[in-house]
């Protein structure tokens, strides 16, 4: 067991995957000699050499295409897209080529790769470097979508993602970089598609993901002080989605709140609300509450940015008001 922060867990997760499987290669902008734009890949090129860690030109389409071609030709590439906002530059490769290759060829092509990217708001990067975009990936058939909330999950989920025969989009949240946690040694592996109950409770289920997990936990702690017992679910993955865990929790608590960072329209919380209505309607004792990012580009100023994404205080306030009127 080692205690490291989320940023170090990124490096550790990649290094473990590369040690375990010599087919794993890693490419991206500034990931080698520079150690990563966020210093999240420091030391990898020293350990694995330039034959396995490749610094690329600023060419997101080429990075994604090269990762896809290498995956089709027997390697297990991990590609880094520096900010998730830049996924839009290579969305054709991700959504039209990678996601559809197996299907359109009747199973002849396989694309076992991981695209890692730094996601989310909270660090003052402005509207083009702060988006939360997991929901865009979730709507494309053929992609798996992962977003860890803590160092242990990051290392364990990355191990599963690299090992997976299908393409995985792996969202690492920038605002969690300094969060510390214990990571088990050895072949620590967290399977894709299994949510974690990070706080058990009986009165209301809060479903969250990535940087919203600590927000939900802090809110649950405060609500616990008011006599409301919250069960907090960390989804970990949007695809595959652990619907069983969500339904089981709602059947226990009879109330559901989803807390998501991305703007409200078509957010993954809407999908979960819809699924819970289909699968657990008669267990619900009240309306489902969706707490989301504001429907605006992420603003720069510190107070505006903080107000545009859900906070623990905001979650407590909205849930308290809802429970009072229930």
């Amino acid at each position, binding site marked *: 067991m080692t205690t490291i922060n989320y940023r170090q867990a990124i490096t550790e997760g990649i290094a473990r995957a590369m040690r375990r499987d010599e087919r794993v290669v890693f490419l991206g902008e500034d990931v080698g000699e520079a150690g990563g734009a966020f210093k999240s890949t420091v030391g990898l090129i020293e350990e694995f050499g330039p034959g396995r860690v490749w610094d690329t030109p600023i060419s997101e*389409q080429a990075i994604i*295409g090269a990762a896809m071609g290498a995956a089709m*030709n*027997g390697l297990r590439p991990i590609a880094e897209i520096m900010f998730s906002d830049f996924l839009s530059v290579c969305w054709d490769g991700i959504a039209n080529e990678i996601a559809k290759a197996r299907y359109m060829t009747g199973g002849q*092509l396989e694309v076992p790769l991981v695209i890692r990217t730094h996601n989310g708001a909270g660090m003052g990067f402005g509207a083009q470097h702060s988006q939360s975009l997991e929901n865009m990936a979730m709507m494309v058939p053929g992609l798996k979508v992962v977003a860890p909330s803590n160092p242990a999950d990051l290392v364990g989920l990355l191990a599963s993602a690299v090992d997976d025969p299908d393409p995985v989009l792996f969202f690492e949240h920038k605002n969690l970089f300094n969060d510390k946690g214990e990571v088990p040694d050895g072949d620590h592996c967290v399977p894709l598609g299994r949510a974690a109950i990070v706080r058990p409770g009986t009165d209301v289920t809060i479903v969250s993901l990535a940087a919203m997990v600590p927000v939900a936990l802090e809110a649950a702690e405060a609500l616990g002080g008011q006599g409301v017992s919250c069960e907090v679910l960390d989804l970990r993955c949007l695809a595959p989605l652990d619907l069983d865990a969500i339904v089981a929790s709602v059947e226990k608590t009879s109330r559901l709140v989803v807390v998501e960072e991305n703007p409200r329209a078509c957010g993954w919380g809407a999908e979960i609300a819809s699924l819970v209505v289909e699968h657990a309607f008669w267990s619900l004792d009240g309306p489902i509450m969706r707490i989301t990012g504001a429907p605006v580009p992420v603003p720069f100023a510190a107070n505006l940015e903080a107000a545009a994404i859900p906070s623990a205080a905001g979650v407590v306030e909205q849930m308290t008001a809802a429970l009072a009127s229930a």
Partner: protein
Amino acid sequence: MVEVKATKATHDTTTVLSWYRRMYEIRAFEEHIQKLFSKGEVRGTTHLATGQEAVAIGTAEALRPGDKVLCTYRGHHHCLARGMSPERAFAEILGRATGVCGGKGGSMHLTDVTKGLYGSYAIVGAHLPIAVGMAWASKIRNEQDVTVVFFGDGTTTIGAFHEAVNMAAVWSLPVLFICENNRYSEYTPIDKVCPVPRAAADRAPAYGLDGIVVDGNDIVAVRDAVAAAADRARSGGGPAIIEAETYRHGGHSRADPAKYRPQEEVDAWLARDPLAAAERTLLAAGVDTAAARAEVDASLNAAVRAALAAPEPDLAAMYTDVFAPEGAR
């Protein structure tokens, strides 16, 4: 700029007849598709390669079994040249279960990995970076395979072309970018949308590469140019851009009559039809081509009949191949 001319060496009539036969198979295949489309048997769209047969066969003649090929939505000829079964190609284009992709791909996505065909891609330029990745993996493993990626002249105006060529050049990868310049970027003459006369070759020096230009209707010239570039790539010499100048006898897709083309241009290119040229060579040597045509016709007729008689995909196939079967690694 390097212009590759055909070698002066004369080829024996058996070889020329074999090339003729293979080009004729492509021509006849495309004519079948056009007829099937007109009869409403083919859904969606098709992009025929009639007139471009010499590029496909010339390249196929230069490649080795382990080499990889990626094509575009206009890729029937490359697939047949590389050895795809015509019956399974027909079946795919007709949306049958026996098609190469089980009926889930169609005309624009013909793929047969067992023949080194790693996909036909319907987004212009998308497959160039993928070919770079295929070649990158070969380089990492020290393998001698080259990856060939075909594209049209119109592709040279999209960003993926430039990103792919740049990365292939700086990483010195064994990938051959083969531009089939058929003069038209869909419906628009390439010279209206491209500022240089040779859409691909003229851009090559910007990436430290020689632009190689070859007569795409001369099968020997194509074969020699590709073989030389492939040899160089196999020995670590890096990528090549080969621009094969050729002509699309028909329109861009479906029933496009291609009225936007000047008649004198069409006539001039039809006079340079690679299939007719091969036939003239054979007739001059006293070789009758009728028997070869009859054999190909009989074989393709049977293939079309079999494909038309094949069943549609089982509805359960809709949900397979989205992800790997459980447990696959």
